Each structure stands twice: as structure tokens, then as C-alpha cells.
């Protein structure tokens, strides 16, 4: 998708668990080529919103629509898919692209992933017994062909495919500086590195939209800075649009282009980081008086 175009459109999304309303009429538009932060107090429904987008929850009502370029999905994007595209392609070009829309609300998570939406989880959900490399190769799962017989044979198509996708995974490993950990089972790695592996696994999918659920939770200032740098690198080099849940307002102010604020399942603020910081409702519900000054 060319930058500036709406990539993900969330309309009147409502999610109820029995009597509890987790999300109430949430509207949000994620534009292509941006880092879009979602902030809000605990229990505001941030993760629920992400789960609705990625197909893990089925919303009670409302819609989530993803726009994608048909060729991109077929080709699997391209990790370094011309970085020049970020610098203002003419809108007229859009007409040439085969842009399609797909409602995500009725799709299972694996189908959503196939459309180019990758995610990380708030509590790290890596494949513990597999190595860093194997975890990242699973990021390539949607781009691979799977056949029992050729897999068992190994020589021929199976090995060729493994090597081709390994080359792309190695680019991600280089980008995130995970070379030293390649062959280690992720269960053995430290928390900070596991978070980075999870980012890498999502990135290996070459998604058009990357959903990051608190990638910097539980990190010290230095680690946060590192990870923020990686997120920016990913955004700029790979040209991925990012939806980011984050509590640290400094990080949000620094790296995001747009912020949506949730409170008790409702959107109470939406705009540039500056606008949101000055919004009295946001200050009252989440930021507190001291921060805005």
C-alpha cells in the first residue's frame, strides 16, 4: 500500500464478554506507512482491540477492514520492498495497484496472518523449545508450500525452499542483531532478547501491518531505547505500518505519528501525539495533570 492511504479501518467495533463490555463503538483508522500508538489505562481494551484485528477474538458487532495490494500478498511483499516508496509516491499510482478490501472480523487468525498482518504478544508467546532460527522460520510459514512427501524426502524442493526462506530470515537476524543466539532454544534466552525474537518472528512474515502489544513492557530505559530503535528501523527499512500498544509516553511521543487513546473500551482521544497530550479528557483519564505541562 502506498503511504498515506487508509490501511486498516475499524468501525463501531464492540466486544462484549457476557455483561462486560471490553470495547464499545471503537473507530480507528490506521494509515499506511505510519506508526500508530494505542494508549490507555490498564483494562481499557487495548489488547482486546488487537485481538479483534488479528482474529483471536470475534467482536460482538462492528467491522475491521484491511486494505491490501493483491500482488503484495501473492509475492509475500519483500523485506526491503523499495524503501523509496516511503518518500511520496503519487496518489495517481494507486489506481494502477490492485487494492482490495477484506473484512477481518469473520476470519480465523491464520487467514488474517495470510493477508499480511503479523503480531507480537503482551506476554511473550514464543515456541519455547524451538531455536531462535526455527521460531523465525515459522514467521515464513505463510509464504512456504507444505507437502508431506517432499518434506520427508528433503532433497529437492523441500531443501531449496528451506534455504530460500532461510536467506530472508537471516536478513531479519542481522537487522535485530540476533546472530549470537541463532541456534539457542528461545526458552533459555533472557526476557529482553525474547521480546526481540518475537519482533523478529513477526517481521519475518514481511507483513504489511505489524501489531505490537507492549513490546517494551518490563524493560529498563536502555533496553527500551534499543527496542524503540529496532521498531523505527523496521518501520523505515521494511516499510511496515505499525500499530503499537505502549505505556511509556516518552516512547509514544518520540516514535508514533498518530495516537488513539482508549478508556473503558471507548475512544477518548485520537490525533497526533501533541494533540492527544493536550486533550483534557486524556489528561483526566490517563496522563494526569503533571505530564501535559
Amino acid at each position: 500500500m502506498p503511504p498515506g492511504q487508509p490501511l486498516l479501518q475499524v468501525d463501531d467495533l464492540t466486544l462484549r464478554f457476557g455483561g462486560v463490555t471490553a470495547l464499545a463503538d471503537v473507530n480507528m483508522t490506521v494509515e499506511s506507512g505510519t506508526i500508530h500508538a494505542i494508549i490507555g489505562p490498564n483494562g481499557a481494551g487495548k489488547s482486546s482491540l488487537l485481538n479483534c484485528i488479528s482474529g483471536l477474538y470475534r467482536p460482538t458487532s462492528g467491522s475491521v477492514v484491511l486494505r491490501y495490494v493483491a500482488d503484495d500478498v501473492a509475492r509475500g511483499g519483500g523485506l526491503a520492498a523499495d524503501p523509496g516508496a516511503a518518500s511520496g509516491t503519487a496518489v495517481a499510482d494507486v489506481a494502477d495497484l490492485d487494492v482490495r478490501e477484506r473484512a477481518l472480523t469473520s476470519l480465523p487468525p491464520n487467514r488474517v496472518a495470510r493477508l499480511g498482518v503479523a503480531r507480537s504478544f503482551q506476554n511473550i508467546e514464543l515456541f519455547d523449545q524451538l531455536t531462535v532460527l526455527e521460531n523465525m522460520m515459522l514467521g515464513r510459514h505463510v509464504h512456504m508450500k507444505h507437502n508431506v512427501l517432499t518434506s520427508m524426502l528433503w532433497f529437492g524442493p523441500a531443501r531449496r525452499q528451506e534455504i530460500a526462506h532461510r536467506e530472508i530470515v537471516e536478513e531479519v537476524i542481522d537487522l535485530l542483531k540476533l546472530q549470537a543466539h541463532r541456534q539457542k532454544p528461545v526458552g533459555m534466552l533472557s526476557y529482553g532478547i525474547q521480546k526481540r525474537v518475537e519482533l523478529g518472528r513477526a517481521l519475518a512474515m514481511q507483513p504489511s501491518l505489524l501489531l505490537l502489544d507492549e513490546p517494551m513492557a518490563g524493560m529498563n530505559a536502555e533496553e527500551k531505547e534499543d527496542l524503540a530503535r529496532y521498531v523505527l528501523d523496521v518501520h523505515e527499512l521494511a516499510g511496515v505500518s505499525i500499530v503499537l500498544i505502549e505505556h511509556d509516553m516518552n516512547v509514544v511521543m518520540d516514535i508514533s505519528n498518530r495516537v488513539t487513546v482508549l478508556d473503558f473500551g471507548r475512544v477518548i482521544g485520537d490525533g497526533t501525539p501533541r494533540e492527544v497530550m493536550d486533550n483534557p479528557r486524556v489528561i483526566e483519564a490517563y496522563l494526569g495533570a503533571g505530564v501535559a505541562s
Partner: protein
Amino acid sequence: MTAVETGRHHTSYRSELRLWHTRPQFIRMAVLAVIVLVLPLLLDNYWLSLANTAMIAAIGAIGLNILVGYTGQISLGQGGFLAVGAFTSAILTDRLGMPAPVSIVGAVLLTAAVGVIVGLPALRLKGLYLAIATLASQMVILFIVRRWGFLTEGQGFLDVARLEVFGFRLDRSSFEQQWYMILLVITVVAALTATNLFRTGMGRSFMAVRDQDIAASAMGVNLTRAKLTAFAVSNGYVGLAGALLAHYTEILSWEKFTIDVSILYLAMIIVGGLGSVAGAVYGAVFMTLLPVIVRSFADVVGGAVPIVKNQLPAVEHGVFGLTIIIFLIFEPRGLNRIWQRLKDWFGFWPFRY
């Protein structure tokens, strides 16, 4: 994590993806190959029959390990699946007159199909609940085998003709030796294909389902397809083991496929190492030899402690249970892990790490 030798540098992914890299590894494999090829010349028929039984068990254990160890779907239906493979192949050969290789392939395919049906509850159930569902399949299959007169023509057992491969009929005098070579080839192929499966994307998606099924689906793994494929592939190997068992033992009855067999196979992969092809082989050999060891032990101490000899079946069961418990407590990752640690210890000697 196993240690990696220093000085092992790869210049291509192709060379890194090889199974064996260093000279000691090649020498070890060569020595192993020589040993297994010389074995039939050294062993008498009794020990060869044990070796053959162990190899059939190894194929079945590899299959079970694909499902339980690699995909994390527990199954108590192993006995029933072996029965499906065994009876299918026996009936195809003896009554429909198909050549044995064809009927064995038929048995593999049918057992795989049965696996898909039995795997359907796995789409909803996990852990203990799935164990009960597969236990039900074991009971149902065994009930059919016992009561369906067609299978054994009302005799309660089924005679299987001597194996004949491409017009070549195994002769009586070197029966065990010839079976040994046949089973050796099939076991090696089974072990290699299973190893290959887990070097590729398909096997990785099975392991992803085991470790984190929600994350796996968010990475684009179709859980339904992955689980059912795992059931089918796993049961293919089990069906192969069942079919070989039918042709090797030449007599089939339902007693060979009871719940005890299912538990024995689970014990094999626990003792050998869950989620490892080599572990399944080690476990199968170990559990096949265990009763033999117990019996010869009973012969030795039987004079001094008569109860060991008089109560031999009870002692065997006791040792069987004790072995599983000891492994679960001291080395839950089984013989395979012990062997890896041993290799590391020698590799690092005289240093600790």
C-alpha cells in the same frame, strides 16, 4: 542445548543443513552401520527375533512420537492403530491376493485415514481430555477387532502367509536374518523421513502447535490442518509397524493390540525422549529388552530369592512402572538426552564445559 564443535564453519546454508558435519560424527555413523550389518551374522535366532521386534516397535514409536512428542497431542490409541494396520495388510494379502508391498502401502494409507477421523476430537480437546477421547478410539477399534467375525473368519485369530516380496519367498532356515535386513532398511528409511519432516516447515508447524498454539495460528498455521496432518502422518508410521508385525509374526489376534500395548509405546517414547526420532528408537530397543533383562536377572537371583522367580510377571510389571517413574523424575528428556550429555562430556574432556 547440545554443544557445537569449534572450528565448524559453514559457507553455505546447504552445508549447514546437513545432518552430520564432523569427522567423528561420520566415523560414529560408519561404525554403527558396520555393527548393524554384522549383527545378523553374530546373533542366534532368539536374539535376532528380539532385534526384529525392536525394529518394528521403533517404527511404531517414531510414529507415536510424531504425534505426542512433536505435536503435543497425547494418544492412547496406539494399540488400536497397530491393529488397523496389521489386519488391513493381512486381509489385503491373504484374501484379495495383493502383493505384500502393495497391501502394506494400503495399510499405511488406511491407518492414516483412521487417524484423521480419530484426530477430529483433537480440534476441540487438549491434554487429558484428548487422552480419554483417543482411549475411546482404542476401545472401539479393539471391540470391532474382537467382535467382527469377517476379520478372523470367526476363528478369533488370523493366520498370515509367509512374506513374499516380488516373487521371492522368505525361506524357513534364514527367516530371522532375512527379516532383519528388510526391517533394517525400512527402519532406517522411517527414521530418516521422520527426521526430514522436522527439518522443514511442515514439521516446524507441528512443533509450534505443541509449544504455543495461539501464537502458531497468529503466525498463519492452520491448526485444524496441522493437527489432522500430524495424526495422519503419525498413524501412517504406526500402520506400517502394524502391517510389518502382521507379516512378521504370521498370526494375528486381538490380544496383541490391547491398551497395554498403547501404554508400552507411550513408555517407549518417554524413556527414549519425547520429541526426538533417535529417542523413539532408543526407547523401543530399551523397552523390548527390558523384560529379557528382568528374566535373566530373575534366573540369576532366583536361587537365593525365590520370590523373584515365582512372581516373575509381577516383578516385570513392577520394573516397567519403576523405569518410567525413574525416567520422569531424573531425566524427563529420556535416553536421547543422556546420550547427548555423554557425547558432550567426552567432547569437552578434560574440561567441564
